[in-house]
């Protein structure tokens, strides 16, 4: 069984719309892998009907805790934000393939946009444990959504921030930081790129990635029902015309193989 009702330990607002929820599960703490997601039933009712996919934001193995970071964007996440510590959260998972960290590389360049920052924390924690060098390029609209970077910096991560409101880091988009980075590093074969964020950002990073000689992994989002490849609802088109399911074949794909309409 991969369904579990986990006790909510803490649930806090990071900004007006972004929440972090910490749940307890020994099994999930053991089994989750960076880039995987949990399929969350926000309450036991027929509305909202379907589960909601949320990336594993962080795992603290010593405490047997799993963290999710989410933005309130609609009915399901709004209801979720009302859950209190001590209540139970029903989750299916871990689901999806996760990032491929077996592939040979020494230096990870991670590009995150908006809520794409959620899975990145678990990824960085794991990469640092593996002894990899990490560059994080993180862009958000509102500078208040940038948090937790001081500990990464203290652990040697090269953190570069872009905000649309210009309150933290560089005013602009992640690509404004990625372009100068790649000008120096595009033929560095010890690198591996990781991208998480909205489709428009993935598509512009793909154009830049096409000119690099190292591999790129992208985590995709699509509306989901089953979360395990059964309903065939969450397809992604590849450039070779194949269709893959984000939940089951992904959510992590080779960025260079994805077909974007825009």
């Amino acid at each position, binding site marked *: 069984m*991969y369904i579990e009702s986990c006790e909510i330990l803490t649930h806090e607002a990071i900004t007006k719309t972004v929440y972090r929820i910490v749940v307890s599960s020994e099994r999930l703490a053991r089994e989750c892998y960076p880039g995987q997601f949990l399929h969350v039933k926000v309450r036991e009712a027929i509305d909202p*009907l379907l589960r909601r996919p949320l990336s594993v934001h962080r795992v603290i193995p010593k405490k047997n805790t799993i963290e999710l970071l989410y933005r309130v964007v609609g009915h399901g996440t709004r209801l979720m934000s009302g859950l209190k510590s001590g209540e139970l959260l029903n989750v299916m998972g871990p689901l999806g393939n996760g990032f491929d960290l077996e592939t040979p590389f020494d230096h990870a360049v991670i590009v995150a946009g908006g809520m794409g920052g959620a899975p990145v924390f678990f990824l960085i924690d794991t990469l640092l444990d593996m002894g990899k060098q990490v560059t994080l390029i993180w862009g958000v609209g509102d500078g208040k959504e940038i948090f937790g970077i001081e500990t990464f910096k203290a652990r040697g991560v090269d953190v570069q921030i872009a905000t649309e409101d210009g309150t933290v880091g560089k005013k602009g988009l992640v690509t404004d930081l990625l372009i100068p980075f790649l000008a120096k590093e595009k033929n560095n074969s010890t690198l591996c790129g990781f991208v998480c964020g909205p489709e428009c950002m993935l598509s512009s990073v793909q154009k830049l990635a096409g000119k690099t000689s190292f591999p790129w992994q992208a985590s995709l989002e699509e509306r989901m*029902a089953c979360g*395990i*490849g059964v309903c065939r609802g969450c*397809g992604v088109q590849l450039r070779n015309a194949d*269709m893959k399911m984000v939940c089951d074949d992904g959510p992590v794909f080779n960025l260079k193989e994805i077909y974007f309409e825009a």
Partner: protein
Amino acid sequence: MKPDLSVIIGSLNLKNPVMTASGTFGYGLEYADYFDPAMLGGIITKTVTLEPRAGNRMPRIAETPAGMLNSIGLANVGVESFLESKLPELENLKTAVIANIAGNTVEEYCLLLQKIANHPRVDAIEVNVSCPNVEQGGLAFGADASVIEEIMHCMRPETDKPLIVKLTPNVTDIQSIAAAAESAGADALSLINTVLGMGVDIQTRKPLLARITGGLSGPAIKPIALAKVYQAAQAVSIPIIGLGGIMTGEDAVEFLIAGASAVQVGTLNFIQPDGALQVISGIEKYCIDHGIERIQDLVGTLAEA
């Protein structure tokens, strides 16, 4: 005492009346990590077509109050791969396997039937004449009694295995269509397939589905499904398999009382992977609580208002 949950659909003996609906349970083993599918009355595999299909453009699922819209478009591996790689995996599965097929023409339905009917692992065939998400056939077929008759006349001589015709609710007169399927030789009817539906994102003014309209499923359609099952049960004497929005044993019992001999669960599988087992135990509990010894005694027992 444990009630007898077994049911008979044509020549098919099911250990209990709960099956998993086509398109919501893959090819039979996708949920095996969550529970043993042998505990089901039967499984109905994803619709297969002559050629593999990738399906429609994204987004092709969306949520609406107590329901979901889909415009998957019969994405499937195609009949050849179904025969070669999917059915053999079910060889030792101790429950009924019902293969669901759909064609674009009457001839395609026949060809599909010829290909699968003799396979030893196919215990029955569910004929999907009702998918709202494909250009040709599908809905148009299911809405036209004479086309259903034509398909049945062509298929019936090809097999002795039970032929179950799956009907669409998107018609004005379900009774004449049900009666046509019965007289053309159907052993049973499944109803309902999804209800034609739509949703709009008012911020972007875009439809929720790229195809604009799609099929609504889940609890939102249960009252519609019950009415169709009840009406069809009045018009035919072959068994009816009821589905549409079943989430609990109580929901399933409503269908049985309204005239269904068995039920299927669809959308529930996505939300609660072992939901079908809870439906089975809910039915069993109802029988125990109400002193019903054989589930078949409950079928079509709607009391007067």
